[in-house]
Structures are given as structure tokens and as C-alpha cells.
């Protein structure tokens, strides 16, 4: 019995470190595979937007002790721009949506409907992102191309970013809308959860001072539960930054052309890794793989940071209710 217990205890000890071990080993391996690219490109990786596999018919070049295809260049600017712009735009679209729906769910719906709606919202998280992407291609892109983008161009062209050529429905807007649809449930569920931790005395106190439900909701979002609002937003952002498949399908997956308007095709860091990996294996110097590793490394650092921040802040928001007076 005693030995069994000991074995069990040490096993659980070991198992509890497995997630940490996996995380660290992924990080270490991605870092390791990035080294040739870090050697080859140096700081230029962060300053150029050109991503070019080089000319295979010419002999490879040797730089800083590593070998790379002739005239090859690997820069993250285009992908970073795509990731940041599409994610930021997604947040801008998702926030008002999330505010309205969390207030509606929390304050206007009967509690039975609230439960049903919350489980539906949580179901959204289970939809494979390729399904969002497919919906984006067959529904969203035509609607954007034929109706919304021409309307925007006609009416908003004086606003920076809204003038420009429309080539197809795929691009920044389509990516941002798809991402907004994917992250709204995340933000709503964090906010609804935080509303539930607000003491009933606070809610009744606000109502008894003559606040409408809308004013109560507004105060909870921007005041009492604001840490959860920030946290939920960051968690949504974390998801948007790392989303790959859906964005790959609707972004236009462009390389080497910087976007000039919201109608432009883009590419994101995650989508680029997925879409460029296949051809990268044909690079006999291995430099393409190294460059994609470095891209993954940067993406991993950004989205881990955002997720950790989001979790910490959202957690603090939930605690506030308990700590009050």
C-alpha cells in the first residue's frame, strides 16, 4: 500500500510538470530551429517586408556561418502588419457587439433564456475554424465584394484606408470580420461570468438610485467589472493573433505586397507559417524552415504574452467582487 502510494504520488508530481515541459520544449525547439535565420537575417528580419525564397539555380550564399539560397530574404513586416491590423480591427468590431450582447444576456433576458444563450455562445468555441473560413469564402466574401466594400468606397473614401481598389472580397475586412465573429463569444463569456460575481447589493444599489438596466450594464462594463472587460478583450485578442486557418482562407494570402487599404489582401504570421511551410521543405539549405520558425517564435511570444496578461487581468476582475469592502 505504502509503495503504491509513493509511486502514485511521484507519478502525479511528474505528470503535473508535463504541460510546463511541453511548453518549454516547444519554445526551445522553435528557438533552436530559428537560429540559422537569426544568423542570416539579423535585424533585417524585423525591418523588411520582403519574403523571397531566393533563386535556386544560383549557388547558395554563406553569411555569418550559415547557408541560404541566393538573393533570399525573410522579413516579418508584412505578416506582422496583417496580424496586428486584422486583430485590432477584429477587436474594434467585436467590442461593441460583446458589450451589447453581454448586457442583453445579463440584464434583459429571463434567466432561463440566459442559460440557453450562454450555452449556445460557448458552443461557438467548438466550431472548427475551417468552417468559419468556408463560410467566409462562400458567404462573407461575395457580400463584401458586391455590396459592402463598394458602398464603403463610395461613401467613406475621405476616411483614410477606405479609398482604394477592390480586387476581391478577400483581405483585411473579411479577416477582421471572421476574427470578430470568432472572438466575440470569448469576450461575452468572460464578461457575463464577471457580471455574475458582482454582489447583488451593488446591482440593487445602482438600480435603486434610478439607473436604467442599460446604465447599470454600462457601469458594470466600464466601472465595476472593467478588469474583466480588459481581460476578456485581451483573451479575444490572443485568439485573434494566433488564428490560422480561417484567416488563411479569407485573407488573400498575399506575399510581398503591403496593404494599401482595408480592401487589400493581407497575410498574417500564423497564416504565413501554414501556407509557406509546404514550399519551404523544397529549400535545400533549410533556411526557409528556419525563417518560418523565427516567425513562429515571434508569434508565440506575442500571443503568449497577450494570453497571460488577459488571464491575469480577467482573474483579478473576478476577484474584485469578492474583495469588496
Amino acid at each position, binding site marked *: 500500500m505504502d509503495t503504491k502510494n509513493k509511486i502514485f504520488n511521484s507519478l502525479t508530481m511528474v505528470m503535473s510538470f508535463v504541460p510546463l515541459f511541453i511548453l518549454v520544449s516547444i519554445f526551445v525547439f522553435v528557438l533552436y530551429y530559428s537560429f540559422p535565420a537569426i544568423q542570416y537575417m539579423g535585424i533585417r528580419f524585423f525591418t523588411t517586408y520582403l519574403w523571397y525564397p531566393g533563386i535556386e539555380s544560383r549557388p547558395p550564399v554563406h553569411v555569418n556561418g550559415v547557408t541560404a539560397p541566393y538573393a533570399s530574404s525573410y522579413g516579418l513586416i508584412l505578416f506582422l502588419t496583417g496580424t496586428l491590423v486584422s486583430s485590432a480591427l477584429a477587436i474594434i468590431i467585436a467590442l461593441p457587439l460583446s458589450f451589447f450582447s453581454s448586457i442583453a444576456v445579463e440584464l434583459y433576458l429571463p*434567466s432561463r433564456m440566459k442559460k440557453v444563450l450562454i450555452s449556445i455562445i460557448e458552443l461557438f468555441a467548438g466550431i472548427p475554424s475551417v468552417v468559419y473560413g468556408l463560410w467566409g469564402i462562400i458567404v462573407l466574401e461575395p457580400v463584401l465584394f458586391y455590396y459592402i466594400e463598394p458602398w464603403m468606397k463610395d461613401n467613406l473614401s475621405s476616411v483614410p484606408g477606405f479609398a482604394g481598389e477592390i480586387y476581391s472580397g478577400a483581405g483585411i475586412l473579411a479577416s477582421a470580420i471572421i476574427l470578430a465573429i470568432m472572438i466575440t463569444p470569448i469576450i461575452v463569456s468572460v464578461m457575463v461570468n464577471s457580471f455574475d460575481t458582482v454582489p447583488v*447589493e451593488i446591482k*440593487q444599489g445602482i*438600480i*435603486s438610485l434610478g439607473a436604467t438596466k442599460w446604465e447599470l450594464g454600462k457601469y458594470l462594463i466600464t466601472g465595476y467589472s472593467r478588469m474583466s472587460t480588459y481581460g476578456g478583450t485581451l483573451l479575444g485578442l490572443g485568439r485573434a493573433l494566433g488564428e490560422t486557418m480561417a484567416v488563411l482562407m479569407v485573407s488573400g494570402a498575399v506575399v510581398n505586397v503591403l496593404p494599401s487599404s482595408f480592401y487589400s489582401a493581407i497575410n498574417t504570421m500564423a497564416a504565413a507559417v501554414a501556407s509557406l511551410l509546404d514550399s519551404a521543405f523544397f529549400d535545400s539549405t533549410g533556411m526557409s524552415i528556419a525563417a518560418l520558425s523565427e516567425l513562429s517564435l515571434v508569434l508565440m511570444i506575442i500571443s503568449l504574452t497577450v494570453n497571460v496578461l488577459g488571464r491575469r487581468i480577467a482573474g483579478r476582475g473576478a476577484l474584485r467582487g469578492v474583495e469588496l469592502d
Partner: protein
Amino acid sequence: MEISKLSVRAGQKTILDNVDINIYRNRVNTIVGPSGGGKSTFLKCLNRLAELDRNYRVTGEIFLEGKNVREYGEIELRRRVGMVFQRPNPFPMSVYDNVAFGLRLQGNVKKDEMDMMVSSSLQEAGLFDEVSDNLKRPASTLSGGQQQRLCIARALILRPAVLMLDEPTSSLDPVAKGKIEELMLELKERYTVVLVTHDIGQARKVSDYTSLLFNGKIVASGEGKDFLERTSDDTMKAFLGDLTA
């Protein structure tokens, strides 16, 4: 206020059963009774807070200054009938912002006017001298008794006709409790006070008109501080006996 045939049901359960009470102007009107007797629900009917609970069915008529409370908008009614809760519930913001909260909901108030209203409400609630050196301090740094008086100031800034206090001292120490009891006697000069308490001693000290609410029914009511002693009602005696034993 006049309350007539007020009943509240939640499913099969009757919380208030045909309550008839008059609330007298500039008096401390006290509802006493054991916990779970429907006292808080009674108060929540007066500002229509009870209706927010979808399980509650409220019937009967309540009049404020001759007008049925249903004819007031909910918002307007809640501004006319202020409420202070059992547990101090300051919002997590500064003392100043707490008091200003209700007025800010009404729209734009000029800064100097707001300053004046905040100070006078704090003065009325007997808190001004204790906090005037720094109104920007977080409300959570105040003591429990101060927090409760802050909540009173927060209700008073809307200049309500009626101020309802739901067991306002039950979570406070004796000194803080005494201050609030004195405050009630001052407040009734300008406001109509409705006090709910299970503390007979408190009712003796401050009440002008007392009713006993027992299992959702008003079983005795009468004027005067010594009404509680003079009563011949058996239920009241049993309740008093329970508490003094």
C-alpha cells in the same frame, strides 16, 4: 404613502399577504418583525425593486403623494423613494463619486453645483466632517458605519420624498449604530423615513409609528414609541418575549 392590499407571491409561497399600511410624512415609520417575515420585500415593493425578480408577483396598490407608484416611471419613482441596504454597499470608487452617482445618472450637472450637492448630502448624513479633508479617498477605506452613512448621503443627493432603511445598523458596531439612530431622528425633519428592523430596542428609540410584520401579515400597528410595550396583541407579545428572553 398609502399601501393597500399589497400582496407578493413567489410561486406557491406568499411573502406578503394583504398588507395595509400608511407611511406618515416626516415620521420614522418602522416595520419590525422576525427575519424572513417579508420586511425587505415590503420595502422593495415601495420602489418597485421587487418587480425585477421575475418570480415575484406583486398585487395591490401603493400611492406616493396621492399618485399610484405604477403611474410613476420606475426611474422617477426610485429617485423619489431612496433606499439604503442592510449591508453597506459603497461602489468601488471615491467618496465623492459615490455620492455623486445618482445625480450623474440624471445628466449633466455643473461642477460647482455638484460639489455643493455632494457636500450638503454628506452633511445631512452626518459624514461631512469626517471625510471633508479628502473626498477623493476610496469609499472602501471608510469604516462600516461611515460606509453606511455614505450610502445614506448617496440616496439623499436625489432629494427623495421617502428614505427607506433596510436594517441599516444590523452589520454595525454599537457606536456606529447609535450614530445612525441619531441621524434618523434628524432626517425625519426633512424626509419621510421608513425603517425596517428586527431590533426592538432600535424601534423603541426612534420609531414614531410602528407596525409588526409577521409571516407576511401586519399583525399590529400603532403610534408612539411605547406602542410596543402598550400592545395587547398576542403575536407582538410573543415576538417581544422571544427577543427579550
